[in-house]
């Protein structure tokens, strides 16, 4: 689901000749700074979008479903900053309210996948044995479906709607969390501090949650922020396909889907909902990438 997380460490194993090391060092410092700068920009954008969603009632100039039939498909103007749709509804107001649904649904999906997936991964990695190989097989099966198809199949079972979409994205993202946390657990479980915890008689749940988890949380946090970006994309895709939120709900994918029919008269109507999705996903990716550089020990020790 998040192929970007498996990118091999850039420049790993590069032995810089001494003459070039100062240049490389400077480049690394520059990179360090820009990465943190980008991380802050991404975080600020995500926080701003969340605030906009929460305060949609205050910020929006119109109720999201208020129709102004005299100004249908109007271009952006002072009265309607991003124009109006086919029923004369204010596009900006609908985007603001739509942000609520998208943010809520995608964060719910990612948190669900993160909690269940890492619980599965941590325990399979810790205990191993039949449980591990059985769970591994199940994950293999889930990995065999392109995410969208798995989601479509699940939406078919549960019926269209946001709850099905949340569950579909969660199930589709689950194997990634399970795999990453399992691998991290296996790398860590034989370390001395873990053996020490066992030796002083700490119970197994305590060892997993209090001793090991704090040392494994880094990659998982990275995965959550990157998974969040994918969840937003998929949530909008499902709604766009008519499998998630249904009109007249103000939702970005739904808006984009209706805007398709008016591409000739009102291209801006199709532009803004997609741009909103893009900005949110882009910011989340910035956060995820920045956090990976901060938290992934493999990359930061370089």
């Amino acid at each position, binding site marked *: 689901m998040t192929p970007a997380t498996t990118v091999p460490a*850039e420049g790993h194993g590069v032995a810089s000749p001494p003459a070039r090391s100062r240049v490389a060092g400077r480049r690394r410092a520059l990179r360090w700074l820009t990465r943190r700068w980008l991380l802050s920009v991404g975080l600020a954008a995500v926080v701003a979008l969340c605030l906009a969603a929460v305060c949609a009632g205050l910020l929006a100039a119109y109720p999201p479903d208020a129709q102004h039939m005299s100004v249908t498909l109007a271009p952006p103007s002072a009265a309607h900053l991003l124009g109006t749709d086919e029923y004369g509804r204010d596009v900006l107001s609908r985007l603001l309210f739509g942000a609520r649904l998208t943010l809520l649904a995608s964060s719910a999906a990612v948190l669900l996948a993160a909690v269940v997936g890492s619980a599965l991964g941590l325990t399979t990695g810790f205990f191993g044995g039949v449980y591990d190989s059985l769970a591994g097989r199940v994950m293999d099966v889930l990995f*065999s479906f392109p995410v969208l198809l798995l989601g479509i199949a699940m939406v078919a079972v549960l019926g269209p709607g946001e709850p099905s979409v949340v569950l579909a994205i969660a199930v589709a993202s689950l194997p990634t969390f399970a795999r990453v946390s399992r691998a991290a657990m296996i790398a860590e479980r034989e370390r001395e501090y873990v053996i020490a915890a066992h030796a002083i008689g700490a119970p197994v749940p305590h060892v997993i949650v209090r001793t090991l988890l704090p040392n494994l949380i880094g990659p998982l946090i990275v995965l959550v922020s990157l998974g969040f970006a994918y969840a937003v994309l998929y949530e909008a895709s499902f709604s766009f396909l008519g499998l998630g939120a249904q009109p007249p709900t103000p939702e970005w994918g739904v808006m984009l889907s209706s805007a398709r029919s008016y591409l000739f008269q009102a291209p801006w109507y199709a532009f803004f909902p*997609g741009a909103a999705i893009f900005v949110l996903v*882009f910011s989340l990716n910035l956060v995820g990438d920045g956090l990976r550089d901060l938290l992934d020990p493999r990359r930061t020790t370089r």
Partner: protein
Amino acid sequence: MTRYLVWRAVSVIPTLIGVSILVFLVTYFIPGDPAQIMAGSDASPDIVASLRHQWGLDRPIYVRYVVWAAQALRGNLGESYFSHLTVLQLVSRASAVTVELAALSLAVAVAIAVPAGIVSAVRPGSWFDLTATALGFGGLSIPGFWLGIMLIYVFSVYLRWLPAGGFTPLSSGLVPNLRSLILPAVALGTFASTQFMRYLRASMLEVLGADFTRTARAKGLTELVVLVRHAMRNALIPFVTVLGVQMGYLLGGTVITESVFALPGIGRLVLNAILNRDYQVAAGIILLIATAFVLVNLAVDLLYPVLDPRVRLGRGTFSR
């Protein structure tokens, strides 16, 4: 080595069985009785019951699974409740579109990613590298359906260069055929190209810092020979794995792209089947696509040791 290949090939079998069980369960739990839907809401219970019996819907779940799986193995994936065409007929008709779309998207992705990734890695930190990385980051975040719609706006509505949707088969000529597929291929290939570029840049950087590259340079080989014959050949090996993984994304992405561009491919077929509750068709296609995805990844894994003799036995299920 042979043992690894055999083990890897055999390990596909339980996965495929699991895939088939999951697909079957999905169709089993889809709400709505197909017999009732087929017969109409005012049909008498007798007619519905006889239809259920005719399709074997009244048998226990495990019997239905075994019957379904045995039929599927023989290539009989059932037929559409509506058009009464078999799933294989429907798929073979639609697959021409989807296969061509996927191949073109892959070509677009590789054509963008390979030069961009290599130049970025050869001059890391240069303006080209920074621009390519930034664009790649943007391409990673762009919703494919939005990109498709914007492409339609620019090239079909505004410039009127290309058709806004629909498919012209190859039999009507290569140029009209390509004209109908180029926008969808770009919309679908962009995401894959950003992935390819990231991987290629990273593995190129690694290879360019390796000892054998330094040796090649020390021998006095020209930079071009070092790049093409020594670095690229090794950097492209991990790339093959990414290709396999991306095939899955492309196959999933066709659902959206075909919907945006009104292409009569497999993605549209499966979406319509689900929206119409035509679940034999939906199950058949999902099974076919998942199987294809598993086999593509198997092929990639089997190809890997051929390309890279260093790969040896001992890669577990999760370490792939």
